[in-house]
Every structure is written in C-alpha cells, then in structure tokens.
C-alpha cells in the first residue's frame, strides 16, 4: 500500500485513492465544490488545490491519485507522495480562488435560502478574504426556472457543474447543460425539455451554494430555526433515509440522508414533497363516537371502554384489519389483541421506476408491506368470503390515512358490519363509516420499525409532536387490550413491543432501536416465508 505523508502525518492508503479522499478520511479538511462522491470527477472549481512535493504547481486534490511509485522515486526514500494542505501558497491560493468565485456574487446571504448551510459562506469565512478587489460592475442575471420546482439564481452559481452531472449520471435524463463559455457561461435547460424528472429536487441539495432552489422551500424559513430529525420516507417500499426539518408542528422540508444500503445520497420528489399531503388532510385529534350522521367527542377512558365492550359482545366475531402503511409494532399488537388479524387494507402499487444510477422508486407505494406480511402471515387474500365464512360482524381497522376510493367490495363489507372501530389520524372515507374513531399518529409523528421491500428493517423516529389528544398507535392498542382483560401484556414503550415481537418472529429477534441505528439492518431474507 502506498505511503502518503500529508501535513506531516503518515498514512497508508489504498492505491487509487485521491488526496482529497485520503485527507477527508483522516480528518484533514480540504475545501471543495465540484467534487461529489456520487459524481464523476471534473476538477474544475480549483477550490481543493494542495501542494504536492515535486510538482511545480499546486494540484487539485480531488483529481490527484495516490499510487505506488518505484523505489528510486520515493520521497525521503519511503513516501509515495508528500502533500501539504496548509502551507502559505495553498492558503493564499484558496483566498484567490474564493475571490474569483465571488466576483459576480451578489453577497446576498441575508435573503438566501442556503445561508447557514452554504459552502460559499463557510469557506469564505474559514479560508477567504474579507474584501474583494473587483470594482467593476457585477454581471447581473435574472433568476430562471429550470423546471417547475427548481429555480436558478445565476448570480450565485459558481459553475461547479454538479447539477449538470447529476442529470447526466444519476437521473440519466440530461436536461441541464453549461451554456456558452467563459464569462458568459451559465447553467441552462433545454427549451423543450425542462428539469422535470422525479429526482429533480436533488439538484437543489447537491448545489454547494444557493444557486439552485426548490420552489417548495424558497423564502419560507431560515435553516437555523428548524429542528432536524433523521427519519425514513414512507412513500414507497424503498424507505429512503431522510432528514426532517420542522418548526413546531410543521414540516418545512425533507432532504435525503446518506445510506449506501438504501438510497445513496438521494431521494425522489414523490417522497420529498409527499409531506404536504398531511397538511391538507382533515386530522382526527380526539376520540369520537358515532351519533346518527355525525360524531360526538368523548374522552379516552370512555372510548376505550366502549371499544372493548363492542369487541367483547361480538363473541370473537370481530376481525382485525392491519395496514401496509403502519409500523411492524402496531400491526403486531393488533394481531396480539385479536388473536391474529384477518386481512389488510389494500396496498398501493404503481409502476416501478429505476434510474440510470440504479436509484429506484418501488412499485409498492406502501412503506411496510413486507413487514406486514412477515408479521401477519395469516392475512387472507379474499377478505369478503372469509368474513362471510367466519360470520364476522365487527371490524377493528388500523387505518392508514390514505384516502383510497372505497371500492364496492369494501362498501359491501362495511355495510354488513354491526360495528366498525377505526384507529386513524385522518378523517378518511373509512373513518367516516366508523362507529368509534380512535385518534392515532401520522407518519412523521410515529415511532417504530418498518421493513422495506429488500428486507431491511429501519427505524422511524417521531419528528413531530402529537396533535391534540391523539396517542401513539401501540399505546392505544395496549389500552384496548387491557380493557379486554389481556392484562399480561403491558409495554412501557415501543422498544418493548419490538422485544416481544422478536420472541414470536425469529427474524426480528434481538432487534432494538439501538441495534438498528440510523441506517437500519438487513434481515437477509430470514423473514421470508
């Protein structure tokens, strides 16, 4: 293995590693813009210049590879390369590069959405000059839409071409290009092919400065006001890792969180903008009981008592219905409560979309169908005939807030029931038909695990506070269970539910939030069957 000396530190690294990667892995900061680990190297921004011994000029560290050199060329008889990232020349060059990059920059950080997470700002502060010597008029260009959700502020763009390479290499859609050259260059989209693919939102994330902006977030808030919470997207069965940015009880934006076993660095726009759905939905925040055509509010104790009464009176003729949108724990608890569930709400499937880079949007648009099938193996395919066969006349449904058009089959099922209990966070068509509504949590409020379509279990952390009197779904199920005199099962938190679940399902044995960590764990097919 080549021996690299960098800032006096001796490091053995794999041949073919770049100086930039080697530095990064060893806690030495080299500033960079055009380099992105998911994209081809272009070495165009010059921000990452370092001094390599024996080379007359500074070298771009992102495109300088360390390899074995023959013994007679080793520096000091042993180093394959000697690099200095801190000497006066490098320090001065960084100042110069930043001065160039800021020539036409409007210095409008106070109104820029990137401020607070902008590399132009950070590097200027750390490595730059306080003043520019440029006193000509700045080149000013108006903002433009590159696609329906992406705006470019040309004046802030440093032409690193990350966005262009993203469309060429990751989405493979190639809408963007660098127009013209030199002083006149700018990022452009083809007139008849705007940047409107389902991965477009990512360009705003990978833009190292405030040039590319998502219209969804523009001028909405300042990043330092927001709470950042790691979670998992629940809009398809891939389960991209995300960071949820929220203020009080409102989500402002989602950004992808790096996970090389799931989504790499990116996420799709279905998931990215999906949270707006919860803003439009009519929330249920209080237990309710039917009173003719409308509902009356009631307190939790009463609601649980009534629910338990109905189930008890039905003499085992109440069936549990789970959902591919709910967590493993909620589905599991319903099974425990009803001695097995009968069916599930219909999953949602659309076309699978796969991009050039392998990034995938699953055909299964429910986040936890795999987990549901693992844990509720007894789910029947033909629900109506099973209901008939078993003479079921009551349902306890874990509703998932997805407003499905109830088809005739479901309408018929509901019409036959003496009572329906719906545990939900939204006033769906299903909830409207209920006798009792128990208010649970919405997707980004929940805590628990989901299993993606490649058998990876991931941890959902609650990113938003509960609304009104709603309670965690596992807690509601536990309360009902207690009222049904299934006293032996009490759980202090959802972590305990996971433990008990693991005892019943070997594949899930030994799981805990601690073990799942931020990136989840693969079941390695242990759960199938």
């Amino acid at each position: 293995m080549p021996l690299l000396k960098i800032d006096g530190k001796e490091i053995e690294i794999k041949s073919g590693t770049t100086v930039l990667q080697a530095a990064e892995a060893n806690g030495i900061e080299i500033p960079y813009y055009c380099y992105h680990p998911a994209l081809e190297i272009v070495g165009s921004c010059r921000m990452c210049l370092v001094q390599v011994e024996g080379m007359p000029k500074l070298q771009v560290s992102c495109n300088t590879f360390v390899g074995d050199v023959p013994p007679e060329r080793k520096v000091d008889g042993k180093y394959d390369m000697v690099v200095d990232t801190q000497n006066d020349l490098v320090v001065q060059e960084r100042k110069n590069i930043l001065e160039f990059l800021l020539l036409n920059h409007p210095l409008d950080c106070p109104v820029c959405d990137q401020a607070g997470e902008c590399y132009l700002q950070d590097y200027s502060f750390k490595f730059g000059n306080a003043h520019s010597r440029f006193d000509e008029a700045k080149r000013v260009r108006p903002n433009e839409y590159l696609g329906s959700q992406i705006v470019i502020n040309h004046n802030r763009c440093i032409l690193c071409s990350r966005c262009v390479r993203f469309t060429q290499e990751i989405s493979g859609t190639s809408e963007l290009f660098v127009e013209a050259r030199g002083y006149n260059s700018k990022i452009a989209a083809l007139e008849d092919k705007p940047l409107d693919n389902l991965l477009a939102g990512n360009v705003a994330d990978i833009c190292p400065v405030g040039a590319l902006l998502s219209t969804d977030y523009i001028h909405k808030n300042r990043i330092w006001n927001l709470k950042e919470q790691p979670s998992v997207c629940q809009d398809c069965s891939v389960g991209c890792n995300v960071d949820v940015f929220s203020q009080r009880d409102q989500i402002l934006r989602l950004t992808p969180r790096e996970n090389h076993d799931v989504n790499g660095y990116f996420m799709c726009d279905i998931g990215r903008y999906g949270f707006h759905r919860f803003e439009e939905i009519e929330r249920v925040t209080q237990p309710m009981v039917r009173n003719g055509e409308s509902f009356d509010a009631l307190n939790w104790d009463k609601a649980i008592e009534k629910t338990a009464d109905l189930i008890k009176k039905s003499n085992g003729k109440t069936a549990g219905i789970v959902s591919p949108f709910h967590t493993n724990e909620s589905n599991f608890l319903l099974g425990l409560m009803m001695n097995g569930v009968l069916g599930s709400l219909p999953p949602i499937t659309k076309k699978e979309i796969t991009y050039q880079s392998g990034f995938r949007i699953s055909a299964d648009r429910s986040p936890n169908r795999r987990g549901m099938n693992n844990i509720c193996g007894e789910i029947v395919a033909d629900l109506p005939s099973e209901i008939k066969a078993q003479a079921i006349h009551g349902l306890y449904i874990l509703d998932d807030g997805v407003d499905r058009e109830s088809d005739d089959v479901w309408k018929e099922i509901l019409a036959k029931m003496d009572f329906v209990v719906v545990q939900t966070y939204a006033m769906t068509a299903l909830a409207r038909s209920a006798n009792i509504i128990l208010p649970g949590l919405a997707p980004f409020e929940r805590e628990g695990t989901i299993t993606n379509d490649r058998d990876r279990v991931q941890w959902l952390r609650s990113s938003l506070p509960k609304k009104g009197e709603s309670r965690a779904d596992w807690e509601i199920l536990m309360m009902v269970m207690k009222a049904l005199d299934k006293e032996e099962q009490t759980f202090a938190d959802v972590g305990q539910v996971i433990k008990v679940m693991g005892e019943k399902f070997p594949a899930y044995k030994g799981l805990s939030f601690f073990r799942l960590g931020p990136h989840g764990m693969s079941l390695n097919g242990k759960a199938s069957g």
Partner: protein
Amino acid sequence: MKSNGKLKQRFTFSDPERVEQIFSQYSDKKSATLPLLHLAQSQEGYISNSVIENIADLVDCHSAVVMDCVSFYTMLYTKPQGRHIIQVCQTLSCSLNGADALVDHVTDKYEIKPGETMANDRFTLMKVECLGSCGTAPVVQINKEYHEGLSTQKFDKLLESFE
C-alpha cells in the same frame, strides 16, 4: 409536417457517405460530434433544434450534451444567418487601425447592428476576436475569405460585390 402553422422539418444529412466517413475516423462515436455539427451547418446554414436532435441520436448522447458543445463555440450558429457573413476583427491591431469605422459603415449603409441580419438575408454582421492577421489590420472575414488592410472605401466596394 405542419405544427403551429409553421413548416417543421426533421433534419437529415444529405450526404450519408460523408457522415459514415466521419464516424470511421474516430474510435468512439461522441468524438464525431464537432465534425458532424460543421457538416450540418454547411448544409443548413445554422444548427437548428432538429440538427441537434439528429446528431444526438447519431452519436448516442442527449441533446443537452450536444447543445452544451454548440453553445461553447461562437462559429456554430443557432439561428439562421444571412447569405454572407461579415466578421470584423475587433481586437487590438484592427481596432487601432479603424475596425470600428468598418462596423459603423455596415451599420449605416445596411441598417444592421453587430449580431443582426438584413431583412433580405443578404448580410449578417459580426464582431469577432483576433483573426490572426494583425500585421495587415484591419481585417474582415467575409464567408471564408480574409480581406486585409481595408479602408472604408475599399470595404464599401468589396461589399457591393456580394449579392
């Protein structure tokens, strides 16, 4: 094919053999992009969207990549040009020797500013950077020919000879 009342034709190369020959000179298709663009421009007079799509297909890449290349070079035109293209050098030697007067002359006489084309398509006027003939400044390139050491009178007579 009519769309929006305008005649829209798909571009194809009129000399497929030449296209084949260009491809045979390179080991990868993409390298043929520039020569194909020149060939297309000599056939069409400019690079239309249809040219870009056609070439993108031929060299197996996206239109945006070809567009990136076209927009980089000032000698590839993305708009129709006049029958004759007047390129007046505006770099130092020519500038000192009266290139501005030549530009003004065309502007006054034919009512086109740099970058514009006459309504009857006779001339397109352009200012360009050094043509590499500084010793004989001022220099004007008309179509593919250089015309050196021009005075306004000589230039005027010269222009008359282009229909």
